[in-house]
């Protein structure tokens, strides 16, 4: 271990520190000054504080340039990680704003603080190339998410979801740790670049293969890829809607990014190849199998769902499959495509959960319950239309360009057109997916609702947030250059 200067440490981690301190301040304020205020007011003030802290952190990030590193690859900030961190903070802000119309809890401070703490964990997660720190940050993130999932104390389902998520997550952490320990044993280092240097060689050590599989399983749980997806439908269905949205958006961005770091940096020399007739062992074929399975299982199982949130969960599983294509491409273009995909996916799915969140008070869960929504809330329904169509990959929404970009990246990877089999599967499966997305929209737009049409109860902040999300989904689809330029693609 090399000595670290505390001044450097503070300077490098200032954005994270700001967010963490914001979380603490929020907690303290909520427990003292706002003790007697009403819940809506506490949510309002709390979300405001969370926004201010996150915006401050974004401001710091946008005003720092170049790369900052700490010894032992503990902390590596590059322009790319900054973009991802900013995206995570933006998603945290949007989540906090969406939460202002939930009434699930009176522990407002804790709820918002946990969102911020999870964000801190994710910011660390994307900015490190050290196995130890990756694991610690991942656990920090997971713990926050377990609690957010089980936060609705009134609901039996929420508790069940939290417990399931916790059990599966704990097991996946075990797999991940086992894989990491093997990597350490093989290379004698916990820094990703050094691991890559150590396990390079013409033939792949069988032990390295086991390590790869273990790491893939561990991260497979995190990103909810089949066959490690079983927790996702229960967690998405049972968790408070905003928490589910947060899990589907922010944590997906961070988990995919760190997964990409681990395999493309740490296992760069053990990639192998999944192309037809150019097959070579390594992590690429493993991910090919997981991706193919996720697309098939996710899309086919989604068809049979009757609960909107379970449907979104299975759709998330299938999207994890598409996103893995970006990793499998194993090229800079693949990485950019992955980040573009995961960020735009996060926006669309957070938006969809946001819309569902406004219906939470009425206990809407089945797809049929959405009938006639377009009459009750035309604006909200239009936003839901945009989010769902973006998930389905209809242009000009961002979900379409994301798919095109990631498919192109996969085909462009050497040997050219070698991954055609996987891309064809992905394209075919995305055609299947339109069916269940249209099933949701059918209820919203086509079906006649119940005659009593009470107006929806939602705060102005939530309404505006949902519109912002919808605008972003459209904007990034029509002008993908806005985000690509940032990524330096």
């Amino acid at each position, binding site marked *: 271990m090399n000595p670290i200067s505390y001044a450097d440490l503070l300077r490098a981690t200032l954005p994270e520190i700001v967010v963490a301190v914001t979380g603490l301040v929020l907690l303290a304020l909520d427990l003292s000054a706002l003790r007697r205020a009403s819940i809506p007011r506490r949510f309002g003030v709390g979300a405001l504080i969370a926004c201010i802290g996150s915006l401050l952190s974004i401001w710091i990030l946008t005003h720092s340039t170049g790369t900052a590193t700490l010894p032992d690859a503990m902390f590596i900030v590059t322009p790319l990680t900054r973009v991802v961190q900013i995206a995570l903070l933006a998603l945290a802000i949007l989540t906090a704003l969406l939460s202002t119309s939930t009434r699930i809890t009176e522990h407002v401070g804790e709820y918002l603080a946990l969102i911020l703490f999870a964000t801190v964990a994710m910011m660390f997660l994307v900015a490190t190339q050290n196995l130890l720190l990756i694991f610690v940050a991942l656990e920090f993130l997971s713990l926050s998410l377990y609690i957010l999932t089980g936060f609705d104390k009134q609901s039996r389902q929420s508790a069940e979801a939290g417990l399931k998520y916790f059990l599966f997550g704990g097991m996946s952490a075990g797999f991940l740790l086992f894989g990491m320990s093997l990597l350490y044993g093989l290379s004698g280092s916990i820094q990703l670049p050094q691991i890559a240097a150590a396990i390079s060689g013409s033939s792949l050590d069988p032990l390295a293969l086991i390590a790869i599989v273990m790491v893939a399983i561990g991260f497979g749980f995190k990103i909810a890829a089949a066959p490690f997806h079983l927790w996702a439908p229960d967690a998405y269905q049972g968790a408070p809607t905003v928490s589910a949205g947060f899990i589907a958006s922010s944590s997906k961005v961070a988990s995919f990014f760190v997964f990409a770091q681990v395999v493309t940096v740490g296992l760069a020399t053990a990639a192998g190849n999944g192309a037809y007739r150019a097959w070579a062992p390594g992590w690429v074929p493993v991910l090919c199998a997981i991706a193919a399975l996720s697309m098939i299982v996710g899309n086919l199982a989604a068809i049979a769902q009757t609960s909107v949130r379970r449907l979104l969960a299975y759709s998330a599983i299938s999207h994890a499959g598409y996103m893995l294509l970006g990793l499998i491409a194993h090229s800079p273009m693949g990485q950019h495509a992955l980040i573009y995909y995961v960020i735009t996916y996060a926006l669309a799915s957070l938006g969809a959960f946001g819309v569902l969140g406004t219906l939470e008070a009425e206990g809407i869960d089945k797809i049929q319950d959405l009938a006639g929504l377009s009459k009750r809330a035309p604006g909200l329904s239009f936003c839901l239309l945009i989010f769902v169509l973006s998930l389905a990959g209809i242009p000009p929404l961002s979900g379409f360009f994301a798919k095109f970009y990631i498919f192109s990246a996969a085909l*462009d990877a050497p040997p050219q057109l070698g991954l055609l089999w996987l891309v064809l599967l992905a*394209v075919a499966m995305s055609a299947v997916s339109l*069916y269940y997305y249209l099933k949701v929209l059918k209820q919203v*737009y086509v079906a006649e609702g119940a005659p009593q049409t009470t107006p929806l109860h939602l705060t102005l902040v939530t309404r505006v947030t949902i519109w912002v999300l919808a605008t972003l989904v459209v904007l990034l689809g029509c002008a993908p250059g806005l985000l690509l330029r940032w990524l330096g693609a």
Partner: protein
Amino acid sequence: MLAWTIYISFLGALASRLSPSKSLARVIALLTAVTGLAIGLITLHSWQPGELVTITRIGWISRLGIEYHLAADGISLTLVLLTGLAATAGILFSWNIEKRTQEFFAFYLVLIGGVYGVFLSFDLFLLFVFYEIAIIPKYFLIAIWGSAKAGATGEEAGSQREYAAMKLALYSFAGSALVLAGMVATWTATGAATGGHSMSFDALVSANLSTHLQMALFPMVFVGFAVLAGMWPFHTWAPTGHAAAPTAASMLLAGVVMKLGAYGCLRVAMMLFPAGMNPWEFHVLGLGSWREVFALLAVIGIVYGASVALVQRDFKFVIGYSSVSHMGFVLLGLMTLTQIGLDGAVLQMFSHGVIAGLLFAVVGRMVYDRTHTRDLNELGPMQLGRVIPFAAVTFILAGMASIGLPGFSGFIAEFQVLVGAWQSFAWTIVIAGIGILVGIAFTWRALIKAFYGDPTPGAAQHALPPISFPEQLGALLLLASTLAVGLYPRILTDLILPALNSPLFEGLRQGAWR
């Protein structure tokens, strides 16, 4: 200026959605469609033969070499005119829509905007974007405002609508999935061939993709588009979709949306992968190239569509299957790879667009909306020929145009296709000829059964509301255009032929080009 057809349609969609009253929404929609038609006509007036007008060309997603490239040649302009006509007539024929009127016209105009966009795109990516934009509105138009089969009511009718709408959406989407896969592969391959990726048609045409790759991509992309063009055996969405759709939507579906598919076949599959139609150097069931395979499917479609139309009881299904039959001529014309055959194919796209629009207007609006039945056996006793003579006369004229009597656009189009087919594969002529004969039979049968059936003794004639002014206007508009093109086809052939002879279609000009 042509680009404004796209923008105006989307703006019109927004305006009619936000309009406070139903009548205002109608007026906005009509104005939008008329403006689109007017823009097309003005462009036609100042058109120089053989022109390729670049309307807009700016970088869009420059990192991937994707451009926002709108351009028009004679073929695009022909279809833009068709879209303008069909859109205007469609709005006139849906003047009586009372259910969620604003939303109806919003979806309708979004569909129109997407269609204009496809015809004007000269970048493959952009074309695909517009192509997909057109899918979703179709679903909602049918699922919300559609009609059901004869006899179905309430719940059952609703589920029939939704079934037809979903079937159509899934077929379209499956087709476009094939196109998407082909497009991604093209993008990758051009990068390897030329060093820089590009999706613009001129760059793709000159990219010299390997014959091997073209052989693989051509059938994929062609089938992808041909699904929407109603190619047998991927046509089954068409009759159910057409029959279940509200009148204006069936007019658009048959009139314009099926042309999207045919246009994609010509503009993308054939123009970009001409070597895909080369002989295979081996024979399967006597067929030696993709060209022959698709020509066979096209003539099967001609005969099959006509024969099935002959035995339908549901008036709308008659017209729905007749569309499959007539679109077979378009595909056959494309596959002839002769100048006259291709010219006929494009002309047939226009002609069928107008005529099918007219037929659906008669069946869906003039007859069904008044009698609330589409069952030919129930329509016969109503003596519609006497009750609503305007509808009967319109149907007679449209039927004459449809079976290809000289003087109407259908004649000149199908005749050219047949001449082209004679030059390329003479055997198809025989089958297509049978199809034409059956076509005459089913049109005659539908006419007699629907309008001039035997009166039931003792049954009083139903008084039906007279044909309204918008309907007459729409019918006259469409009739005038099919007559104009039929009597003076040079209006369109002067657009189409120079475009076919332009360098863009160089790859198609093989030995048989006459």
